[in-house]
């Protein structure tokens, strides 16, 4: 089986389990929830077909929804975030042959570009999740506070995880 498929499958299952078993139960200071399932969208290879990315993102969101009793909420947020992944990526990274087929991480993009890319995707996803959850612009202030808190927490968590995973992987390959 293709190594890349196994990698994506492991990523899918790991993120799903981490989200539903650990991070679903955390809400820091009442304003910051770690929404780590966005990491799947962030870390899938950039040349992955949009239809496949949409399908996997939708299924991941749906699985989290089923376990969290919020049917449709994460599935919708994941689908919408998946569709803007490429435009966001190419907003920070130039169209280049070297960028074809890469998996976005600190090593491939560099810390600065990767941080921008990760922060934007996380921000969009957090905003979508809380907008759909509140479903009313009368609560826009709370939506923004929760979005900022959750984006910051998720960004730090994912950046930390990414550093550990990537650096360990880099050492192993050397």
């Amino acid at each position, binding site marked *: 089986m293709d190594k890349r498929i196994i990698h994506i499958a492991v990523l899918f299952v790991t993120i799903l389990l981490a989200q539903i078993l650990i991070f679903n139960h955390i809400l820091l200071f009442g304003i910051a929830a770690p929404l780590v399932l966005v990491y799947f969208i962030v870390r899938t290879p950039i040349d992955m077909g*949009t*239809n496949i990315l*949409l*399908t996997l993102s*939708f299924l991941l*969101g*749906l699985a989290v*929804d089923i376990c969290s009793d*919020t*049917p*449709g*909420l994460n*599935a*919708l947020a994941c*689908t*919408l975030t998946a*569709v803007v992944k490429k435009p966001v990526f190419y907003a920070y990274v130039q169209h280049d042959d070297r960028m074809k087929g890469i998996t976005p991480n600190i090593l491939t993009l560099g810390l600065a570009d990767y941080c921008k890319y990760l922060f934007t995707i996380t921000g969009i996803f957090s905003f979508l999740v809380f907008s*759909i959850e509140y*479903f*009313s612009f009368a609560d826009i202030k709370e939506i923004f506070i929760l979005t900022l808190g959750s984006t910051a927490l998720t960004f730090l968590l994912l950046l930390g995880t990414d550093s550990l995973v990537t650096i360990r992987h880099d050492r192993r390959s050397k």
Partner: protein
Amino acid sequence: MRNLLNFLMKYSTWFVFAFYVLVSLILLFSFNTYQGAVYLTSANAVTGSVNEATSEITGYFNLRKINESLQASNAALENKVLNLTNEINHLKTLVDDSVRYAGLPPRFDYVTAAVINNSTRRPRNYFTINKGRADGIAPGMGVVDQNGVVGIVNVCGNHTSRVISVLTKDQPFSVKIKGTQFVGSLAWKENDAQSAWVEEIPRHARYRIGDTIVTSGFSTAFPEGIPVGTVMAQVKSGDSNFFTLKVHLSSDFNHLSTVRVIKDSLKPELDMLQRFDRKEE
């Protein structure tokens, strides 16, 4: 077929995206009470405003039918009023009568008709209605619209009739000032569809500008009290014992649409008596 497949393949991403969004929204609104309630409220508001706009537009298409049904119910009500007035007048004449009153048979009846042809600019104006002999219409019957007197049936076909308009020279109508017994004769003389003249009003009659002119009830064509117009001014008359009033006509003869023909059940009897009178003369 190939073009269709090419089209589907080309835009497959958007179809897949739309499908997942749709499924997510269905799940969201079906299984989340709060989001479902918000969606239903917003959807109801949108549906309500769309329905309101639709009914405002389509409402105009039904106006003709509504107008016809209103005219019919108006005719029925006027008929009732006239017959009740008739009954009351009759009851007033019964003084301490021990015989039980059985009531009068209704005298007047109305037939609603649509105006299918109309003229207002000739010396003698006529209009045509879509009811005729088959509907019980006969020459000599009065015709009114929702505002007042408009003419008298002149010639009848099976399904259409020609009506002499009030706007006709040499066609007098017996009228009076409302609330008085001062009777005159309504005549139209000039090329103005909005005014006519009431002649032969006795000099001692009292009236004010704006008083209503109504039918006198002295003919079999019209019952008493149907509006004809309002007094505009007094004009000089050749005869010093009478004066002439200029009258603003109640009906808009340029826009006649639905009219009612008055059927008087006593008309044959009254006509026969009039013929008898003439023979004696």
